């Protein structure tokens, strides 16, 4: 046991590459649990942030400021009756959510939360991610067909057409980023997720700013396509409530429905991770090459701790502002406990060994968090595209732009 832990701490590669099966399994568990928790947190955050955009309060009842709402929701969904329509194709109906779930969770194997914080590093990493995440289309199609009902069928047709279309533009944008990896001294590019980040480190530039504005345009194309890919507003046609009730998962309920939701949010986090890895320098902290030296290293390594302390402070202010009525005593105590836990985590993050190992994960998560917030922001702001307009944007706008950027990147890469 101890050997294993020390072997881990001494490891300078991912467990998958080291062939360390036990650590790989532990990693998988950690990632799975982490993503599930992140999805729950995202759920709470989305409802809360969306509510504040819309001058509402959002969940306030379960736990202080609705903090326990995701748990209550999970319990509700798990205990809900699981309805399978009579006319449905039972087998396919049953498999569909599992496919979506598997597809969106499998990609986490290659997401590098840090130079060594990934289950494994495939040398076709990005290809693997795109491939596996494209499998979730199957789940959508199967769900829509198996429900044997008009609205889900139309929803799934829309959804699959949309996902396939935007995959093309997305792929093109990704290729131009991959092309940038080959512009280093040795001249060999890579598809490995870790390799891509290392290439950015080596070239001392985030690919977002490389060949400005080419990198930026490719990133923008990807950022739009990824919203469409995950069926989120303003591209949420498959689930367009006002037209198709709930799209492909109209007939689903309870646990199976929650699997769809879990898959959707996991996919959102996954594609955001791709964007962060390819263009925003993955786990690299801001200004890794201009603000160098031990002093700056120390400053940046203190960020995670201070972030948690800040959150703790916000929670503590919430405790103070809680109404002083006996009715709210438990809530106040809960929030105080929450603040204490956050503070404690913040303090732990100041301990030097932890501080150094956690930094990469922190920066990565922070960048992904920005995307998550953008997702919510879009949803609060935009109306929904119509299907033909969506296709037009995908094929006539994004794809030509992405191809143009790809060609220009290639030319610049050869010339420079």
């Amino acid at each position, binding site marked *: 046991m101890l050997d294993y832990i020390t072997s881990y701490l001494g490891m300078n590669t991912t467990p*998958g*590459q080291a*062939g360390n*099966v036990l650590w790989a399994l532990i990693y998988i568990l950690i990632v799975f649990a982490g993503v599930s928790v992140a999805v729950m947190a995202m759920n709470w955050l989305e409802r809360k942030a969306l509510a504040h955009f819309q001058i509402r309060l959002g969940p306030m009842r379960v736990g202080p400021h609705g903090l326990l709402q995701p748990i209550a929701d999970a319990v509700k969904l798990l205990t809900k009756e699981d309805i399978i329509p009579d006319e449905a*194709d039972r*087998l*396919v109906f049953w*498999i569909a959510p599992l496919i979506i779930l598997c597809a969106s969770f499998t990609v986490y194997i290659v997401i590098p939360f840090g130079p060594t914080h990934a289950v494994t590093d*495939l*040398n*076709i990493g990005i*290809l*693997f991610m*795109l*491939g*596996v995440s*494209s*499998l979730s*289309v*199957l789940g959508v*199609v*199967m769900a*829509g*067909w198996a429900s044997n009902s008009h609205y889900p*069928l139309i929803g799934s*047709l829309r959804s*699959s*057409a949309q996902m*396939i279309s935007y*995959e093309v533009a997305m792929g093109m944008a990704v290729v131009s980023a991959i092309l940038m990896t080959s512009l280093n001294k040795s001249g*060999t*590019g890579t*598809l490995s997720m870790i390799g891509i980040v290392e290439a950015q480190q080596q070239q001392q530039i985030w690919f977002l700013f490389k060949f400005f504005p080419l990198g930026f345009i490719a990133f923008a194309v990807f950022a739009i396509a990824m919203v469409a890919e995950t069926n989120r507003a303003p591209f949420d046609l498959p689930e367009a409530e006002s037209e198709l009730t709930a799209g492909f998962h109209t007939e689903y309920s309870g646990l199976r429905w929650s699997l769809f939701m879990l898959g959707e949010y996991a996919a959102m986090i996954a594609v955001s991770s791709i964007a962060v890895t390819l263009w925003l320098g993955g786990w690299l902290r801001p200004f890794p090459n201009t603000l160098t030296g031990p002093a700056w290293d120390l400053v940046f390594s203190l960020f995670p701790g201070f972030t948690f302390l800040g959150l703790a402070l916000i929670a503590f202010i919430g405790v103070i502002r809680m109404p002083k009525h006996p009715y709210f005593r438990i809530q106040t105590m809960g929030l105080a406990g929450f603040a204490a836990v956050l503070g404690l985590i913040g303090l732990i993050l100041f301990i030097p060994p932890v501080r150094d190992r956690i930094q990469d994960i922190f920066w990565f998560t922070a960048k992904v968090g920005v995307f998550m917030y953008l997702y919510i922001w879009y949803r609060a702001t935009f109306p929904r595209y119509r299907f033909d307009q969506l296709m037009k944007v995908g094929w006539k706008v994004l794809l030509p732009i992405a191809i143009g950027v790809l060609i220009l990147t290639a030319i610049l890469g050869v010339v420079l």
Partner: protein
Amino acid sequence: MQPVATTFFFYFLSGLTLLSGVLVITRKNPVHSALALILGLLAQAGLYLMLYAPFVAGVQIILYAGGIMVLFLFVIMLVNIERSQKEEQFNKQWLIGMLSAGALGALFVLVYTKGSGLFPASMAVPVESNNTQQVGVMLYGQYMFAFEIASLLLLVAIIGAVVMAKRRI
């Protein structure tokens, strides 16, 4: 990376491929057939991985399982499934089928018994780490002409499909 339980995975994936192949032709419901086909394609991708060809495996998943099969499903969903379920599963050309299957089997046996000397040995030592580059170099170097012909063929196919599908252009 050390291969793990190679023999087991080989037989597992091969069995899966065969099983799904059988399911594809025996299922009455075309959607089930298509799903079985997807399973078969995924198992094949696994086999490619075992052959140290991760790029091909990845492309197999993206293009076949993720792209083409979805279009298959698309079309199947839109046709009338009740009618296709009533139709007879196998048509009457079993003799031709038997003959061609036998010929294929004979070819496999031939390759299996005499095959060791038929292929150049240098092809069999790919390096996993730069597999993708190798594919690229091969494709755009040695096999450039074949690649271009294939792309031309595909272009013709696309135009032909458009012409056939759209009666009025």
